[in-house]
């Protein structure tokens, strides 16, 4: 998967400079851009920066208003404060409606965004006037719900992002207070609709994936809690297993998505793939210590059956998606290692196993680093190259600070790492030599 897709708009601008300098013709620039399914002429006039700055300015206007509410001017009568803010909300939305249809729809969307912020400020003011201190999640829910129709009708990713961020805020407020936010799928469905029917938006796509992930995890948490009514809404060790299975599924899904015909699917695939890779490296770094393994071995694992059912369902979907992407072997191996580690930690109470699992994770980390460096140079992807170098250096640093076993054991592991790296370098040279032969 070519990560240069993530920079295709910069590439189009660069091609424009080459055309201006006479290095290539405009037709050649168009051909270069066409390789990455980006419109050369539209990309040069892209207004992304302008839109982001206007959106941020509206956010600051809203923050200024909300801070003013915080000053709590009791000298101004309640009715005037509230009437004024409601009138401001309605007036902004009406102006936005007018501009959306008679002038510039994008400007109209921006003003809807501002109107939605004013709507939220009105809710905050009502909460302040009536001292509704502890039921704030209700206010955030109504704020998110009030924004939702604008996102659905205009199919604007910006408005959908606003509604989804507020919905996520409500989601976390609810779960922190022990309530399961049952209406959250409504917001997920709305964001999915805008993503499929509206303009492409990587931010909305990532936000949607994060929302789905948390929703699955907390739905399971609610299900497991229902078997123990006295327990609050929390994360169980089983949630971690499901999260890993989800990320493996997502990684294979990104490769499946890359095979789709649509350019936007390929763009989304590149983003998902690179974020899965980052998650995998961070997870391996965390599990390169002994204490997370010890905690998992010590954990109760009271919901094994349902956890295995969910993991098995996700593994099945992963393998089905892996078939057309020709990644059956690699994803199968990945699942096998994951299932092996899960069986070990969920069935054994032998704390000594933690060190073996830690050593295995460190070797997995070094192997990932080598693979990334190889892919980085072989495919010309600098991001992979630097990610690989960084993961190897961080592993070396962490192991130097936090030795595995005693000094002799740590020295042995460093020697093995060195052997692995030298072996990889030798193989690479050998491989390069064969490629250069006539």
């Amino acid at each position, binding site marked *: 998967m070519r990560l240069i897709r993530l920079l295709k708009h910069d590439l189009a601008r660069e091609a424009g400079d080459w055309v201006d300098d006479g290095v290539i013709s405009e037709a050649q620039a168009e051909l270069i851009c066409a390789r990455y399914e980006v419109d050369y002429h539209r990309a040069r006039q892209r207004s992304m920066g302008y839109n982001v700055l206007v959106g941020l300015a509206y956010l600051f206007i809203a923050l200024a208003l909300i801070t003013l509410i*915080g000053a709590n001017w009791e000298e101004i009568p309640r009715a005037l404060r509230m009437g004024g803010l409601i009138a401001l909300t309605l007036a902004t939305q009406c102006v936005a409606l007018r501009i959306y249809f008679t002038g510039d729809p994008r400007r109209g969307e921006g003003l809807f965004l501002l109107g939605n912020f004013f709507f939220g400020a009105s809710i905050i003011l009502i909460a302040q006037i009536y001292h509704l201190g502890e039921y704030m999640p209700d206010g955030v829910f109504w704020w998110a719900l009030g924004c939702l129709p604008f996102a659905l009708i205009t199919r604007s990713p910006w408005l959908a992002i606003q509604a989804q961020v507020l919905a996520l805020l409500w989601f976390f407020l609810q779960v922190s207070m022990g309530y399961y936010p049952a209406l959250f799928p409504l917001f997920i469905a709305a964001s999915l609709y805008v993503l499929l029917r509206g303009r492409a938006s990587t931010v909305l796509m990532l936000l949607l994936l994060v929302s789905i992930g948390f929703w699955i995890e907390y739905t399971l948490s609610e299900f497991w809690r229902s078997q123990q009514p006295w327990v609050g809404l929390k994360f169980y060790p089983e949630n971690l297993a499901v999260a890993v299975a989800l990320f493996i599924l997502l990684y294979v899904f990104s490769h499946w998505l890359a095979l789709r015909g649509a350019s936007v699917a390929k763009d989304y695939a590149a983003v998902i793939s690179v974020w899965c890779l980052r998650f995998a490296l961070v997870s391996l770094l965390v599990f390169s210590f002994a204490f997370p393994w010890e905690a998992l071995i010590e954990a109760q694992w009271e919901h094994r059956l349902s956890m295995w059912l969910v993991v098995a369902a996700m593994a099945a979907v992963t393998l089905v998606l892996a078939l057309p992407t020709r990644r059956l072997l690699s994803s199968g191996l990945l699942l096998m290692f994951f299932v092996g580690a899960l069986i070990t930690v969920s069935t054994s109470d032998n704390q000594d196993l933690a060190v073996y699992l830690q050593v295995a994770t460190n070797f997995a980390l070094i192997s990932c680093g080598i693979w990334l460096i190889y892919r980085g140079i072989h495919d010309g992807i600098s991001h992979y190259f630097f990610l690989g170098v960084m993961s190897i250096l961080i592993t070396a640093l962490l192991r130097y600070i936090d030795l595995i076993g005693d000094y002799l054991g740590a020295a042995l592991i460093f020697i093995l790492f060195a052997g692995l790296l030298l072996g990889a370098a030798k193989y690479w040279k050998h491989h390069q030599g064969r490629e250069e032969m006539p």
Partner: protein
Amino acid sequence: MKKGLTYALGVAIAAQFLILVGMYVKAQMPLWTGESIRVKAIPVDPRSLFRGNYARLNYDFSRVAKSALAGDRQVREGEVVYVSLKKDPSGLYEFSAASLEKPTEGVFLKGRIVGGNAWRAKHFYRVKYSIEAYFVPKVKALQLERELRDGGIAELMVAPSGQVTLKNVVGDD
């Protein structure tokens, strides 16, 4: 098509207006229909990021003994609980009983069992009623903090449904 979209967006704007009116009416309802009662309150002084300074109030009935709900079915976090109050000789209302079912008579407050620590505490559940924050300007909040150092009196408006609104907080003179 354009007419339909205009109509749909108009409905969305109207929906926002109705949400605001609904929130206002819901908050106002205990003030319109409720009975005024006075209870003891203990203030703490925090600040809300968005809504300014407020005095956080604790009440005697913010903690409900687990034994008070012992006869009812198993209690869950977030569960609605009804706390009945009775008038003491000084005219202030205090805890009388707690139930998961709505009482048929008397003054009672509708609250929710909250907090991840609810099940770690041995003898008490923590209950919130949406009357725990009293928003005031900064100067007044500091003055209130001094005045209520040894406790204060909160004036509540309790609707027949148990919904309660905090009307005023004064010193315990």
